[in-house]
């Protein structure tokens, strides 16, 4: 026999739970942010990668305070001094000096600024462009979607590196030009992912509800669709930031990127190349710097993905 509560004035049981019940509830089922915090604390890659990225960020921001010398200051009497691990090395120039007598340690530290700035802004600009296109295509479907797909196909068909090299040769290797050119290289992955996820989100009840109460399409996309894509966008952004840093280094290495005397890591490798056979540290140090930063950003990005959406780990 089922007992039916006929007293409609009685409070509904769940609306006024007793204090102890709240505690029990929270102990058994932690909130999503709490869960993420717990996963983050256990994720070795995330902690390791995040720490290195944070350290590089500190180095970059406080470069003028940390670097012992001006990275542009040439002292021709101190050319090609060996680094500290070499028997003739000294603490005044821990990484030695380059062919123009500039302190290599200071140049590497200032190089972190270039890499981080280009990586971050290229990933951010391409995220805005790509996600906007992806959401528009995925939400509206039909002809609009066909246009977005067409743009993605055109982008994919172009040989990215050659196009980037041509554009740098036309617009020059300024920081802003490079950020825009790299953003052009990387928007497509955001567009592909946000488009397909938006297509799935569009069929959800909360979107229908928002449409029913008369929310504008812009409001639905920004207010309802975008928040559900944010995790994915951040994960892609971290991975694209790593790739952008690598491509900037490659472009600068080829001479069609950041221009001397600015200390970009790719440019340092390129400048050290002519002395590579008898001064290998000029090439190994900036290369290791790129490698460390990129691997740390990748580990952090993989970590963010595992932490925010562990079901999509593989």
């Amino acid at each position, binding site marked *: 026999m089922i007992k039916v509560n006929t007293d409609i004035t009685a409070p509904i049981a769940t609306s006024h739970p007793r204090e102890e019940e709240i505690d029990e509830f929270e102990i058994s089922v932690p909130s999503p942010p709490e869960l993420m915090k717990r996963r983050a604390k256990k994720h070795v890659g995330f902690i390791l990668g995040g720490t290195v990225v944070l350290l590089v960020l500190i180095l970059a921001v406080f470069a003028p305070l940390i670097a012992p010398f001006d990275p542009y200051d040439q002292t021709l009497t101190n050319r090609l001094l060996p680094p500290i691990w070499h028997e003739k090395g000294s603490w005044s120039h821990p990484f030695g000096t380059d062919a123009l007598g500039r302190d290599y340690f200071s140049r590497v530290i200032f190089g972190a600024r270039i890499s981080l700035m280009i990586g971050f802004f290229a990933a951010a600009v391409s995220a805005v462009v790509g996600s906007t296109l992806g959401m528009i295509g995925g939400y509206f479907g039909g002809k609009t979607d066909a246009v977005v797909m067409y743009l993605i196909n055109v982008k994919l068909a172009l040989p990215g590196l*050659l196009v980037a090299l041509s554009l740098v040769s036309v617009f020059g290797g300024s920081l802003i030009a490079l950020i825009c050119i790299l953003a052009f290289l990387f928007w497509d992955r955001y567009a592909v992912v946000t488009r397909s996820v938006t297509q799935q989100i569009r069929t959800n009840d909360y979107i229908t509800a928002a449409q029913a109460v008369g929310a504008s399409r812009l409001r639905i996309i920004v207010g309802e669709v975008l928040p559900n894509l944010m995790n994915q966008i951040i994960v892609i952004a971290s991975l694209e930031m790593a790739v952008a840093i690598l491509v900037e280094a*490659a472009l600068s290495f080829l001479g069609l990127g950041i221009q001397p005397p600015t200390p970009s890591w790719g440019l340092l490798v390129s400048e050290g190349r002519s002395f*590579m056979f008898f001064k290998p540290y000029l090439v190994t140090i900036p290369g290791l710097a790129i490698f460390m930063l990129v*691997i740390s950003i990748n580990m952090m990005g993989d970590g963010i993905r595992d932490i925010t959406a562990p079901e999509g780990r593989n």
Partner: protein
Amino acid sequence: MLNFVIHRIYVSILVAITVSVIGFSLLRISGDLAAELAGEDASTEEIAEVAKAYGLDRPFHVQYFDWAGKALSGDLGRSLFTNELVVELITDRIGVTFKLAIYSLILGLLLAVPLGVLASTRPNTWIDRMALGLAVFGQAIPNFWLALIMILFFGVTLRWLPISGSETEWHFVMPTLTLGLTVMPQFMRLTRTGMLDVLDSDFIRTARAKGLNPIRVLFKHALRNAILPVISLAAVVFGFLLGGSVIMESIFALNGVGFLAFESIQRQDFPVVQSIVVMLSFIYILLTFLSDVINAQLDPRIRLG
């Protein structure tokens, strides 16, 4: 199937036309190509003369249709720098680039597929972690730097391998190793994820329950399904390698199309640059078209969806 193919052809042609316009305008967007070609201290008359000589004074669309018409009949013009026929410049050098791309692709796949399969059979063990670690490593290492380190080690210290030129097969070892390691991670991850998905499915459980040889189940039943996306990716990566080998070509002095493009970009040799960019795009479009059609043929969900 026919509808699918017709639609894909239509899209491919549209993309090809757009790409040719972009490739054609790449070096022209500066606005004044003639002034750059004429040099820094050229007078206005000299610039006008250069513009006239190369037909740069005509409206953009006239130039484009003129070039596209000639290109369709196989005439890509002459290099501004060496005055050689662009077609000959490219056909002389495409072999090296193709060879490097194919070698690197094969090496990448040979490393990635067995490793991905192995990792997927033992998820979250040390083998799996090693495979993923190697992928993270391959993705993070700057390939131009790895190439230089290899030159230092194998070329200078050990003196095992030649460090520049493309005369013998030995010259391709270091560039292939570098590019192979660069493309390996994406194949490895895709094989591993695909295998993990397939190994979890009912038909694999059935096959195992029937008592079939586990190795046979792994390769005949599972890998067969998981390899499809890897093959599609291989087509994409091959297209990427043709355009992306410019760094390796310039480091190892391999005289391929990538290096030709790089040199031509530096000296604003626009007939060469536009031809290479458009040619590589067309190869990419053709490859993805073929891989899409093959996939649709193999998987009805694609052509009906």
